[in-house]
């Protein structure tokens, strides 16, 4: 999808945002998102120096791809500077308390009464609930429901969910401060090139750690975009993530379009040397 099409799609989504609220999103009075072409020098990129906190875990090929992308922006006149997001190192721990807690609450309605599949195999109400939920949810969903239920349970709420909400606030404040200095924040999408299908499914912790760069956007309520930024030696794709301030989607997509116009990574296909996935 080229950036113009994407922008039209975005305008459509933005239009939906202004419909009367029936679903959970923020409506801003009197605002409109505008289309526009990127101008040289209108993007200031930040790179998180605390990303290097993940230094040991950051794949050298990913690092190289991100540096290359930053050079593209420099070539277009962007001023690239280091920023500080000191709490980003807690993002994974924080997210995997907050998100499963919310998931366990939000998914409770899928109990086979109104929503979700109802099993025929039951003897009474309680068994109908447990058998319906036990057979219809997949393993990752069950894992998150159980993590969340634990974090929210009496006696653990303060230590886990409440603490995580406080850390979430600190993460959000980091970003607010950073966006006073920069327009866009760049990072890898993941610490490694794309993993092979099924590679991490038996190792949920590794799978969660791979979310280190992307989930801050969810915690801080920021728009983010992943754009193709290269390939590993063995042909697996590498992504560049850009984050912008709340409601700065126009700026974010403009910055993404700038990179897309200068490179052709988005036209290339992964080769997956070796085995097929």
């Amino acid at each position, binding site marked *: 999808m080229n950036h113009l099409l994407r922008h039209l799609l975005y305008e459509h989504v933005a239009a939906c945002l202004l419909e009367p609220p*029936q*679903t*959970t999103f923020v409506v801003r009075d009197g605002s409109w998102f505008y289309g526009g072409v990127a101008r040289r020098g209108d993007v200031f990129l930040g790179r998180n120096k605390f990303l290097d906190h993940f230094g040991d875990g950051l794949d050298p090929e990913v690092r190289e791809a991100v540096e290359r992308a930053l050079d593209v922006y420099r070539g277009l006149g962007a001023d690239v500077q280091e920023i500080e997001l000191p709490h980003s190192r807690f993002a994974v721990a924080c997210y995997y308390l907050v998100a499963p807690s919310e998931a366990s*609450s939000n998914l409770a*309605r899928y109990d086979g*009464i*109104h929503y979700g599949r109802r099993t025929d195999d039951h003897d009474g109400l309680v068994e109908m609930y447990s058998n319906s939920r036990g057979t219809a949810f997949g393993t990752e969903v069950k894992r998150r429901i159980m993590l969340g239920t634990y974090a*929210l349970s009496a006696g653990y709420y303060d230590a886990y969910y409440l603490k995580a909400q406080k850390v979430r606030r600190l993460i959000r404040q980091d970003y607010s401060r950073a966006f006073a200095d920069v327009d866009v924040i760049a990072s890898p999408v993941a610490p490694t090139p794309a993993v092979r299908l099924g590679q991490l499914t038996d190792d949920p912790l590794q799978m969660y750690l791979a979310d280190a760069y992307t989930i801050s956007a969810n915690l801080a309520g920021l728009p983010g975009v992943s754009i193709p930024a290269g390939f590993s030696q063995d042909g697996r794709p590498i992504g560049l993530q850009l984050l912008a301030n709340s409601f700065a989607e126009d700026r974010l997509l403009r910055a993404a379009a700038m990179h897309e116009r200068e490179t052709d990574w988005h036209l290339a296909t992964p080769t997956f040397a070796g085995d097929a996935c």
Partner: protein
Amino acid sequence: MTSPTTIIGLEVHVQLQTRTKIFCGCANRFNPDEPNVQTCPVCLGLPGALPVMNRRALELSVRAGLALSGTIAGLTKWDRKQYYYPDLPKAYQISQYERPLCENGHLKIESGGKSKRIGITRIHLEEDAGKLVHEENGDASYVDLNRAGVPLVEIVSEPDLGTPEEAKDYMKKKHAILTSLGICSGDMEKGHMFP
């Protein structure tokens, strides 16, 4: 050995006299003959539906708090009370736990020729659940969500009531205050006020 003493505290649910439900525009109307006609994505608990608070429900509950000499909170918030029951479509009730709307009220009653001050621990807002209708032969149960999302205040008293007579006088006085202030219709046969 001393004889046991009677100690009673009451938790009373009061249906607020609003035109619409607490988080949606559906009618707040007792309508047992036409099940599930006063419903919408919000009170049916459709995934992703956004509850928007009823201003009138807040005003009436503040009125109840002031009438019972309570302190109205400067900051109040919602909590989810999570439990499984077929008349609760979201599997949680939107209620108030940590920061109720009102605390530390009281009601003076006359009972058995004596005056007594009954403490009110807290008053909080919440949504009502739906209603289950059971087949007489026990073969089936049906869910009616006309009542789901109807605004309630829960009034929790201190365990200051010493006799069933005092509890009755407490209820009667509270009923009189809440109905005369237009907070609740007080029709107990329609479930508008219940312990």
